[in-house]
């Protein structure tokens, strides 16, 4: 019974949700709405669990003075500081909560992302070598796509046309093939779960 009941719930739920998509009746819409509500509720519990886990791990590291425990202290300070400021000072523009977001968090995240420009330049210089036919095609494609952002005078129109062709023909064909592969893989996995073949979500078996 420990295995059969969860499997039965998954089977009924999976078949119902698949059929429901094609049944435009108010009754099925109501049940669907109810299911979506439940998934949100379960999701909120997952968030609580995540917060508890973060708190427990951080406190544990601080107590044992594990390597880098100072970062855990900052993590907890940030977590509770933002929660308290959000609750008591408000979350509108100009409040302390937003000031911390704009003047501490935003510059940190923007700077981290901006560093990518340097890594990309260095990686492109080292990796883009015309060693083989395939790598030459990749190199030329990358250059054409990058050049579409640059005004080239009379050649701009031609480059835009070539870049547009690359994006809408070979790129699109490859993306569609990948998307279809992912879609078919998703359907196969969902069927395996619904039919009880894939049971790893229930833990060890």
């Amino acid at each position, binding site marked *: 019974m420990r295995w059969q009941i969860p499997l039965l719930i998954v089977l009924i739920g999976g078949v119902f949700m698949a059929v429901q998509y094609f049944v435009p009746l108010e009754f099925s819409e109501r049940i669907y709405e109810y299911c979506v509500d439940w998934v949100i509720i379960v999701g909120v519990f997952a968030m609580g669990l995540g917060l508890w886990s973060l708190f427990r791990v951080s406190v544990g590291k601080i107590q044992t003075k594990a390597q880098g425990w100072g970062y855990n202290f900052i993590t907890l300070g940030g977590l509770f500081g933002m929660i308290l400021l959000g609750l008591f000072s408000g979350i509108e523009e100009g409040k302390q909560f937003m000031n911390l977001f704009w003047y501490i968090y935003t510059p940190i995240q923007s700077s981290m992302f901006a560093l990518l420009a340097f890594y990309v330049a260095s990686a492109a210089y080292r990796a883009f070598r015309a060693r083989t036919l395939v790598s030459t095609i990749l190199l030329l494609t990358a250059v054409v796509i*990058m050049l579409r952002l*640059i005004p080239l005078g009379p050649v701009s129109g031609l480059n835009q046309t070539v870049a547009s062709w690359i994006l809408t023909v070979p790129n699109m064909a490859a993306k569609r093939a990948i998307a279809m592969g992912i879609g078919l893989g998703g359907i196969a996995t969902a069927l395996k779960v619904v039919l009880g073949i894939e049971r790893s979500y229930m833990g060890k078996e």
Partner: protein
Amino acid sequence: MAFYEKLMTMDRRVVYITMALAVAIPLFVPFQVPIHTTSEVKSVYDFIESLKPGDRLLIAIDYDPNAMAELHPMALTICRQCFAKGIKLFFVTLSQNGPGMAEQLVSRLSKEFNKKNGVDYIYLGYKPYPGLVILSMGQNFRISFPMDYYGTPVDSMPIMQGIRNYDDMKAVIAFEAGWVADSWIGDANGRYKLPVALGLTGVMTADYYPYIQSKQIIGLMGGLKGAAEYETLAKAKDRIASRGMKVQTITHIVVILFIIVGNIGFFMSRRKKL
């Protein structure tokens, strides 16, 4: 070390310093980059131009500060165009750092256009689990957003009177820095037939071209270039993206030059070996 070897094994600090200069110098040198508009951006612009005063648009601010440079300018330009036309905007954010982005946008533009919260626009706020929120809004906005960002019950606001779900919206303009774009296309458009237009970061753009041809999206604005194109079409006064294009143009030229230099060294070394 031979010259060609030097070309191939340039110290990475040289690359970094050159890039830093390529980013910094254009900011101080006054010049303009010509912006050519593309059909995928123009179709978004034409769609918004076709709307009438009082029409309703859902605006999804689904990006974090790291994508702000690319997506904030296009969000600003589009929201300005909408407010100027008298379109009612419903802001929502499904990215965990999006509330700050959206709040700044809303407070700035509402002052600029003298628009009233709850009458001309509503900022519904943030809810986690984007796929589920998008699905739930297809049923009823109130499932995920019984209150707005500031804690006011949405039913007490005039803008929400008679509004239930996506059927009451003309489209969603989604500014995306991640996979939430797939959910807008697959769930909001696929299941509920809500027209979708996308504003994307530059690296994401190529992934979403198939959806233009299949007509699952109205159009897309890709990265800073897409934002600059939109500013050109909308004749924006505050041309943040167009100014940023100077930097982007020079840095791209520098990257291409580095690739060329590396390949010159590579071919010279091959010739020596032969």
